[in-house]
């Protein structure tokens, strides 16, 4: 069940007819998106299309003017703390050791520090972070820091994560490595993920589905299934099928941009 559809997977997170007005300006209008269990969906859009606004609403940090947000069928509009949220900046707290950064979501929920550390420990190997537990974030490379931030997001989430351009601050080579690593780790941890990106290649490479968010106010203009299963996408970006997807997306973006 690597490709998913509405029929064979449970609905995980969804926004229904969400509109946000900020200082008299409509930022996003009537947006409905949904994310199924175990699915990775990208929100692809140019800057200024309201991607981050939509994410703040989905994470519960911001309340929409119209519409609502559902998590596993239960309304969670304006309630933060239910889904993991990761930004482009890794935002690891410099004064906490890596393991304490990662287990912070548990500590905030009232788990004792030692217990939270024990619970986080097994994931370090899985995320390729073994040996960094007692280091400070400043001692880690950019890629490692993103992984640590991702692990923290994973531990904060009830199986759902929102990633806001998580790889866009990395250099090209590191980014490529992170993509490969990410595809691999996602196979194992099955985190339902909604990914914001403005990188078309990244979206096609990583996603099951892509929403194209364009215009001002931002609206969903197009929804696209990426057919090949996520697990078999090694060197997918060198195939003609990949280029067809890319052409289709770019045409839409340029036409509406």
């Amino acid at each position, binding site marked *: 069940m690597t490709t998913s559809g509405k029929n064979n997977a449970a609905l995980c997170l969804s926004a229904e007819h969400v509109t946000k007005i900020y200082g008299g300006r409509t930022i996003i209008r009537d947006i409905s998106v949904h994310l199924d269990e175990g699915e990775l969906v990208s929100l692809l859009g140019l800057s200024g299309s309201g991607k981050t606004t939509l994410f703040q609403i989905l994470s519960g*940090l911001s309340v929409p003017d119209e519409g609502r947000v559902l998590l596993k069928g239960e309304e969670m509009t304006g309630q*933060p703390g239910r889904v993991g949220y990761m930004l482009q900046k890794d*935002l690891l707290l*410099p*004064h906490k050791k890596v393991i304490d950064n990662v287990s912070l979501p548990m*500590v*905030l929920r009232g788990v004792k520090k030692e217990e939270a550390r024990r619970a986080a420990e097994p994931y370090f190997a899985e995320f390729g972070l073994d040996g960094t537990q007692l280091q*400070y974030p*400043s001692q880690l490379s950019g890629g490692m820091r993103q992984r640590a931030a991702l692990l923290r997001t994973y531990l*904060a989430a009830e199986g759902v994560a929102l990633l806001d351009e998580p790889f866009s601050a990395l250099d090209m080579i590191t980014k490529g490595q992170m993509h490969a690593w990410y595809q691999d780790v996602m196979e194992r941890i099955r985190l339902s993920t909604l990914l914001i990106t403005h990188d078309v290649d990244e979206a096609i490479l990583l996603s099951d589905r892509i929403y194209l968010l364009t215009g001002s106010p931002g609206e969903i203009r197009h929804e696209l299934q990426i057919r090949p299963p996520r697990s078999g996408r090694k060197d997918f970006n060198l195939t003609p099928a990949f280029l067809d997807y890319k052409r289709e997306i770019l045409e839409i973006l340029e036409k509406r941009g």
Partner: protein
Amino acid sequence: MRERLENTRRNWPALCAFCLLLLLWWGLCASGLVPSYMLPSPQSVFLAFVNDFPTLMYHASISAQEAVYGLLIGVALAFVMAAVMDRFQVMERAIFPLMVVTQTIPTIAIAPVLVLWMGFGMAPKITLVVITTFFPVAVGLLEGFKEVDPDEINLLRSMRASRRQIFFHVKLPSTLPQFFAGLKISASYAVVGAVISEWLGGFEGLGVYMTRVKKAYAFDKMFAVIILIVIVSLLLMGLVDFLRRIAMPWNHVQEKNAAEQGRHVRM
């Protein structure tokens, strides 16, 4: 070990300059260019220091106590005020200007008034130290609170952290560098503040002893006191540095990283 070596290498210019100054002082006195009643020679100051040592230590302990108590109360006060001002914007607008005004009142002018109100004991001295020390710490903390990355706060909010949790997990730790910068300044003010308030009324302490030897024209003893005040101030500042290292181990790691990178670049 290696670190110590590194430290010596970094500090030798200061050490040389200090020795040179001492030599100059000695030369001026030995050559007779400056008469000894105007500037006592280094040897005589050293002798005065040694001969008066028990008395000096007694008075120094009084002044140091006043400085430390004042500093502790000052820091606690700064802490509460900064936290309140950070939490409530109105309070900042109300209190901050008043805080600035307290810093423009000359210490010398207010010390006798404090003596009048509180007597000749330690209370007026400690009060004066509090007034001079809380300001740099409060300003440091307040600046620190303001410079916290709003995204870090948003991140914690996305994890449903309470205001208290945000304060202790993000705001407080990230303000520590500014806090310690302010505390170091305050530590240097504290001893001087205590001594000045002792000048203007009291029975014991380095300031009192200083006025006594001045009246007796014992300038060698007076210089010995001045040097002792410098030593006490430096010790207190050293203590602050030591605490800073303990309180912020991550900073130490960062400095080491930076130093290593610097070394590679220079090579």
